[in-house]
């Protein structure tokens, strides 16, 4: 067995911690964005406004946190938007027409979403159909099914249920407790469990992971079910915020929002790379952008341009970080070797 090479004491770094900045480039962009909006709107940098902007994005945050795990494993779920609508509608029907209690309504929503995830998972993980094609198909199927079940809005789900989406617990909106818990669970799962490492391994090379006897198919199935359940939870949360559900518009195009958050958060579309903290940062970034532009009463067309430019800017900073990071690391190693050879 070869002896490990001696590591010299690292040279004292001067100036800005460049690597630290590069690893958190989106966070830096978020700070700049917050500073900009704070300077332009007195209503922006307040605790109540931050509660509002995060609760506005809570439902999509729940989906993004779990979908990040699926995408790190190299799969995607484009059906989440319609799944949110379907699950929200099932929740609303359960409570308004089938006389279910609020707890049962919550369960109906989550289980409806999980069931959709189970179908996606069987088709994608066990039959090895293309996840993109299957879930895009499911996107249409679910919207149609939702409209077939009930083509008109269902409203009036009761005060208790409305409180879930609009009430507070210990001074924080319930929605923030929920989305915070989901982000925390996703982070703990990915960072501290052996299954989290399997997720990364599958994303890097599914075939190699399979040959290494990792539980590839059950794990992918589980991730699809979890993503479906997260969409179900998001649908339920939206229904509770609105005290009802609209089959045509609930969750519409949220799949694009979720994918945007996940990719902006540094998750590789091909899988194998990503951090939940990055996804959390991207989620806050988009929530801040949306809220700030609204507070400044930026006209809708200008908002479209500003949103697009901010996203491209953030993505380019992220790409810059990804490109510069390895180069700087390489340079550091070369300098280290030079110092060792001179010593």
């Amino acid at each position, binding site marked *: 067995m070869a002896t490990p090479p001696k590591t010299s004491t690292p040279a004292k770094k001067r100036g800005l911690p460049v690597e630290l900045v590069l690893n958190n480039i989106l966070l830096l962009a978020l700070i700049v964005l917050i500073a900009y909006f704070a300077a332009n709107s007195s209503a922006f940098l307040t605790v109540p406004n931050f509660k509002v902007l995060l609760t506005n994005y809570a439902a999509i945050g729940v989906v993004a946190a779990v979908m990040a795990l699926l995408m790190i494993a190299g799969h995607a779920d484009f059906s989440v938007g319609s799944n949110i609508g379907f699950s929200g509608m099932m929740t609303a029907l359960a409570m308004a027409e089938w006389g279910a209690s609020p707890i049962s309504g919550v369960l109906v929503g989550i289980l409806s979403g999980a069931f959709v995830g189970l179908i996606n998972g069987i088709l994608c993980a066990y039959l090895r159909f293309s996840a993109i094609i299957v879930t895009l198909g499911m996107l249409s199927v679910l919207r149609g099914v939702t409209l077939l079940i009930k083509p008109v*809005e269902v409203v009036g789900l009761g005060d208790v249920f409305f409180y879930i989406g609009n009430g507070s617990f210990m001074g924080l909106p319930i929605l923030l407790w929920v989305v915070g818990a989901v982000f925390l669970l996703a982070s703990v799962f990915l960072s501290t469990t052996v299954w989290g490492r399997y997720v990364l391994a599958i994303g890097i090379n599914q075939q190699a992971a399979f040959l290494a006897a990792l539980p590839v198919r059950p794990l992918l199935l589980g991730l699809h079910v979890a993503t479906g359940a997260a969409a179900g939870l998001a649908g339920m949360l939206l229904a509770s915020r609105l005290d009802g559900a609209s089959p*045509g518009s609930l969750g519409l195009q949220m799949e694009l929002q979720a994918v945007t958050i996940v990719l902006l958060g540094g998750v590789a579309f091909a899988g194998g790379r990503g951090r939940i903290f990055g996804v959390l940062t991207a989620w806050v970034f988009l929530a801040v952008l949306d809220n700030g532009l609204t507070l400044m009463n930026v006209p809708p067309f200008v908002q479209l341009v500003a949103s697009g430019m901010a996203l491209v800017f953030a993505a380019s900073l992220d790409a810059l970080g990804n490109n510069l990071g390895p180069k700087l690391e390489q340079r550091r190693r070369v300098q280290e070797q030079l110092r060792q050879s001179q010593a």
Partner: protein
Amino acid sequence: MSILNSFLNRRAILRRAGALAIAGAALASTSLTPATSLADEARKIAVSFPNASVIGAVITSLDAAKEKGAEMGYSVFVDDPGTDLNKQINTIKTWIQQKVDVIVVNALQPDAFESVAKQAREAGIVWITYGQKIENQDATVGYAQYPDGRQLGEYAGQWVTDTLDGKAKVIILGYEKGVWGQQRGAGIKDGLLDKAPNVEIVAEQDAISPTDGLNVTRSLLQAHPDANVILGVEDPATEGAYKAWIAAGKDPADPTGFIGGMDGTVPALKLLKKGGNVYRASMAIPLVEVGYAIVTTADSILNGEETGDVIVPLELVTEMSPKADEYLAQQGAD
């Protein structure tokens, strides 16, 4: 895990999936066949209506058109291209090739339909534009967006003048991405400022769904907590705004608050029927009347009559108005 693996064995599933697919195809060929098809003998009215399958009010209206069509010997088809303009035009071109008798189009961007409308009319097909006006058409059926928006604005303005001495902070939830939204929004603003020139419009943002209305209004109420009038080009958005009003801790029965929208959706009409809350007005579409007008106008033009434009004005429904019941009944929600 091994049980799961054996149950989810790929070959076994594929065998089952194959059987299911065959069964599904057989089922689809029987149960999913439309009641009418392009091969039917009846004269055909083809309706292209973005988001027709997702807006309850539109479904009601087009169901009425189908019912009236069947009564008068027409097959009424509806295609929903979502918001995909290219898909909408492709479908219309297919209809032109199939030589349907009448094409009715809800054009989100009217100018984009001039050339395809010209092709249709050259092929001897009657072209009716729904809710908009283009050069190459036989008639417009629907409503006048600007005057209808203006009526809501005037009602709100008069209310502000009578109740609040003409002073209010106003949020407008519009939809600048569609010409119809621009027209409604302009009507609302002009009508409001005409009756209450001293109001302050503190924000104008796009929102047409309940979720958009809720999120945008919640943010705007942070910047303008004293905003007390919210007007929207779509009731779903103002329904969301009403929820935001409550979530922001404002009194849902605030006598100085006013929320009003357009279209007359079920939740909005229920709030109006109930009364005693800040949701005070909606411009309701006479859904059945509009549906009937599509077919009767098409029939008249096919029979050589010059109908001109057939405009069905929206009707202002206010708090506790018996009209709310009438429109709820039309949508099967009384």
